[in-house]
């Protein structure tokens, strides 16, 4: 009875709002993460990007000032909320936990689920509390408050999803292990050493070439010290690998990706957690090696909500099939580590691109939202990983294949094709805006900023130590005044704030002045060129300091340099600089003036957005009708 009533009510409301009538005009906001104005201009001039060129010629094209620091989570948060970082509270991919000085993920938090103790078993009765750390109100919820339906697809820092007409969360959605993307590599070959994002498992084939193992999933809710597992067996079929993976049987040849494989981790009676993986065979028999993607939350039966309404993720699969759900599915670490080849990686990019396109076109074709916002991150991922192909000075440039050298131009052309498809779907009166959150620059040398802080006497190592592992393992906090963590941040070891703080709050300003002076003077020993273009005082840059995560100093590197991976996690290697010998060869976490994003508009505009922070206000200023 109750149900009937609410259905009736809902129908009445729908009729009352007239939402079943297609809106007259749609504003389409298309994001291409990391699209660079210089590369876009070059390839438009060369005729590679006809649809972008048409927008430039008929509407508007210009640079779009990015956030400081110019990192995607910071910039997309500014895009959504129109707020400066000091108010939206996202300052970096990483934030520091002042009680431990260790690095934590800045974008979202999963607080542990509450559990009931039943006969000694811990049974979850609420899901974990999911918190988006971004403050402020995004333009799509403001638009909804004004009575406009909106669709928002895969915009970074939208997890957990907002309660709007339609939303699929983007960067921030974890994998089933609760991480931002842990893949598994199975190989008959030994590995030099693993990394945090990799689970390496050795294939110990029996003499018939078979191998049976238990593929590990999330922790068992009834005993968190144990992983839940599903059985995985491989056997040779010619040189191909035949997989038996939790009731899925399939055979793959070398270089082949599998379709989606659904695996179910059972943990208590009929309770189970479902996940999706894809498998790629790097090497066939006799020495097989294969990659299993991070375990995606199953959109059909999500372990945690990833969409709004929560059933949307499932309904979408009925329209476009299964798709990647993790926040950053094009996980770059596998390519960096050589656990996927350039070709396999680009194939994965093609797959995620096709998925995003399908859900985007589906949303456009429905015409039930006044604002459709969709972000494609593939431009950013390909630029990060294949900048070596267009930067002759990158240490790996010489070995990049023809495909690799053309990869960035290719993904820009794919973006252009999507623009064309969008134009084809647009009705008279619709508006199209295309933005990127930042541009790109070469990344040739990694700066060990904590090394500089040690050498300058701001950070002290324990007696007898000349270097430190990540997590500031060898740091003597009682004598340390400042430390670097994240991609652009420097923090004062401030008493009353940091657990082992030793600088009095009154002494911070003077210390920052000295730090800015000393860090500005850092030079590349090989060339004598300065490493850092500008340094910013966090106190002025981040007025408000939402979340309390703001760095005290923000480092704006020169193009070609960037904080080393060790620096981001609190490591102190032996040298100031290391050549960047990794495939992660382009970056943008430098002085924001050097890496602006782009803005394209389908119609000329007297006051186009100049900064990523202007976008939301500009959209809400359009006549949305209805």
């Amino acid at each position, binding site marked *: 009875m109750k149900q009937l009533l609410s259905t009736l009510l809902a129908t009445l409301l729908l009729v009352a709002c007239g939402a079943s009538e297609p809106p007259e005009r749609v504003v389409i906001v298309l994001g291409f993460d990391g699209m660079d104005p210089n590369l876009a201009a070059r390839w438009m001039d060369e005729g590679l990007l006809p649809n972008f060129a048409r927008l430039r010629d008929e509407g508007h094209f210009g640079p779009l000032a990015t956030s400081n620091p110019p990192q995607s989570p910071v910039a997309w948060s500014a895009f959504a909320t129109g707020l400066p970082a000091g108010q939206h509270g996202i300052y970096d991919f990483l934030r520091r936990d002042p009680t431990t000085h260790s690095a934590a993920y800045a974008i979202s938090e999963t607080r542990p689920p509450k559990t009931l103790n039943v006969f000694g078993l811990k049974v979850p009765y609420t899901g974990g509390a999911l918190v988006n750390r971004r403050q402020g109100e995004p333009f799509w919820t403001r638009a909804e408050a004004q009575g406009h339906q909106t669709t928002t697809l895969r915009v970074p820092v939208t997890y957990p999803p907002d309660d709007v007409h339609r939303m699929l969360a983007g960067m921030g959605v974890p994998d089933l292990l609760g991480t931002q993307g842990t893949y598994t590599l199975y190989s*008959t*070959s*030994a*590995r*030099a*050493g693993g990394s945090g994002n990799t689970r*390496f*498992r*050795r294939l*110990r*084939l*029996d*003499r*018939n070439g078979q*191998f*049976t*193992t238990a593929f590990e999933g999330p922790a068992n809710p009834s005993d968190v010290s144990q992983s839940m597992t599903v059985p995985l067996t491989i056997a040779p079929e010619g040189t191909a690998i035949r997989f038996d993976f939790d009731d899925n049987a399939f055979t793959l040849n070398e270089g082949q990706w599998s379709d989606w494989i659904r695996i179910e981790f059972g943990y208590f009676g009929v309770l189970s957690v479902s996940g999706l993986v894809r498998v790629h065979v790097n090497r066939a028999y006799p*020495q097989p090696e294969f990659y299993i993607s991070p375990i995606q939350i199953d959109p059909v039966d999500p372990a945690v909500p990833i969409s709004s309404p929560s059933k949307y993720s499932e309904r979408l699969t009925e329209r476009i099939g299964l798709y990647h759900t993790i926040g950053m599915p094009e996980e770059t670490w596998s390519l960096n580590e*050589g656990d996927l080849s350039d070709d396999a990686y680009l194939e994965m990019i093609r797959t995620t691109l096709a998925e995003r396109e399908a859900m985007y076109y589906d949303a456009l074709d429905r015409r039930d939202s006044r604002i459709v916002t969709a972000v494609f991150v593939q431009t950013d991922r390909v630029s990060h990983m294949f900048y070596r192909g267009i930067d002759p000075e990158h*240490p*790996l440039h*010489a*070995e990049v294949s023809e495909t690799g050298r053309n990869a960035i131009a290719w993904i820009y052309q794919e973006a252009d094709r999507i623009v064309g498809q969008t134009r084809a779907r647009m009705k008279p009166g619709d508006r199209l805006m295309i933005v990127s959150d930042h541009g790109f620059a070469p990344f040739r040398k990694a700066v060990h900023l904590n090394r500089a802080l040690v050498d300058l006497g701001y950070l002290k190592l324990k007696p007898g130590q000349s270097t430190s592992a990540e997590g500031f393992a060898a740091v003597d906090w009682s004598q340390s005044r400042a430390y670097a963590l994240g991609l652009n941040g420097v923090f004062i070891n401030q008493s009353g704030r940091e657990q082992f703080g030793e600088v009095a709050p009154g002494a911070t300003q003077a210390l920052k002045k000295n730090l800015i002076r000393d860090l500005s003077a850092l030079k590349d020993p090989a060339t004598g060129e300065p490493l850092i273009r500008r340094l910013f005082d966090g106190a002025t840059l981040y007025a408000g300091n939402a979340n309390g995560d703001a760095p005290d100093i923000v480092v704006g590197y020169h193009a070609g340099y960037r904080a080393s991976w060790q620096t981001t996690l609190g490591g102190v290697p032996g040298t100031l600089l290391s050549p960047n*010998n990794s495939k992660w060869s382009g970056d943008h976490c430098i002085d924001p003036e050097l890496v602006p994003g782009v803005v394209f508009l389908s119609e000329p505009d007297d006051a186009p957005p100049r900064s990523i922070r202007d976008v939301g206000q500009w959209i809400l200023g359009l006549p949305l009708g209805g």
Partner: protein
Amino acid sequence: MKRRHPCTLPTLMLATVLAACSGEHETSRPQLVFLGVDGATWEVIKPMVEAGELPNFGQVLAEGSHGTMMTLGPQVSPVIWTTFVTGLFGRQHGILDFTYPYTPGPKVPVQSGQRLEPALWNLASDAGQSVAVVGYFASHPAEEVNGVMVTDRAIQNLSDSVYPADYLAEHQKDLNSGSSVSGRRKLFARFFDWPHRFNADQAHLASLNPAQREATSMVARRVDSNLIASEYLRRVTRFLMDRERFDLLITYFRNVDYASHSLWWYHNDDGYPDKPDPAVDALLEPVVAESYRYADDVLGEILDRMQPQDSLLIVSDHGFGSATGDYAINGPNPHRLNGNHRPDGIIAGFGPAFASGQEVAGVTILDVMPLLLKLMDLPLADDLPGTIPFDLLSPEVADRPVKTVPDYNRRNVSGGIVEVDDQAQQEALRQLRGLGYINEDFESGQRDEEFEFWQIPPNMLLEHVAGEVIFHILRDNPQVARSILRQAAASRPELARVFENYVRRIWSLLERRFPSDVLDPGKLTTFESGQAANP
């Protein structure tokens, strides 16, 4: 198969309950014997077997399976023997040389506490299997195992050299009788066709003719003292086998290596620019062959004590040849050390766990631990670089599922260095010095400082790096080979170019010893072209 069966009190009680202390062995668990013969090569063994000698090696060859062992990297015995029982490269297991520290200066012999990773005996003990370890390289001080450990320095009667400490107590005199004056004479009479005395005084030397004096100088304090040690270990091995059964018995002999270092020229003068003095040659020519006969006797005693369900694995860490050409020794007295290592050792399996009549190729020193773990039904850690040589195994063992574990989670076996008295250290070092392994002087005191692998002397570092790189190239894993070279170059920029050249040099030496189906030249070419594109 003769066997005495003493029943200790607990066994007696248990046996009484089971009413099975009857000397019947049908129900006993199979025992694995791992016999190490340092420096043994098929190039000596096979011709002797064909000539009707070495009956026990003959039986193993005829009924079991065998192959050539590839030693990659430094042909330095403690490094390789530790690789055999850890499955890891020296960089990982931490035993890098005969002596410590690895930087120039006064040194002491390496100790078990310097091993960074668990050995087979630790893993077997943890799994509740019983083990006995006899005379193993770098096993002093004795580790606490589920069984018995008699270290390589037990004959020196050092404290900590036997576990449990009193295990051999009342038997030591008997076991050590080979080093009594009469024991030595009897032992030496077998090897030396002249009245050789240990530590001979001037009067005795004066009683010898010039050829005998020269022969004496070639064997004194090296070949002869090792024979005494070998005889002790032989008796300990017999004693243990007669007294108890173990799931795993490891025993190690070094007399072939000592004799081959000192006397290869007399054994086989092919390749040398000149011939030895005929009178001296007549005395020393038989000693290397006799060392193999001695090893064959040891093998025979082991075979006699094995039961039908038991199996035996024999390995050597490297082969031998003349110290000429590529293998010439740059040292103070090359004449004294006229034999040198070769990268091809031996591996042979015998008993029901092994296949019959198989000859295998391409087994490396890294594959021995995976094989031993498989034989013991223990899990293989993911980070062991080697693989199981299935062709050596019987179908029954080969078809058992392979157990794996991500890692052993058991580092730093005993940790720390124990103090050893100066005289004993001097003696141990003198023997090593005699083999040309070390030149540095002994200095009293303990050396327990941390070491950084990448900072060891260049000649050592190059060998270790080349060994690892070549292994990974051979196993189609150029990515790891490259990452090791990159790490090496980053750690020692002054050697950056040298590393790659050294890999090529070692590869070309290996090419002269191994057929191209084992050492595919194409793999190096592919690797090098990859390197060129990836500076």
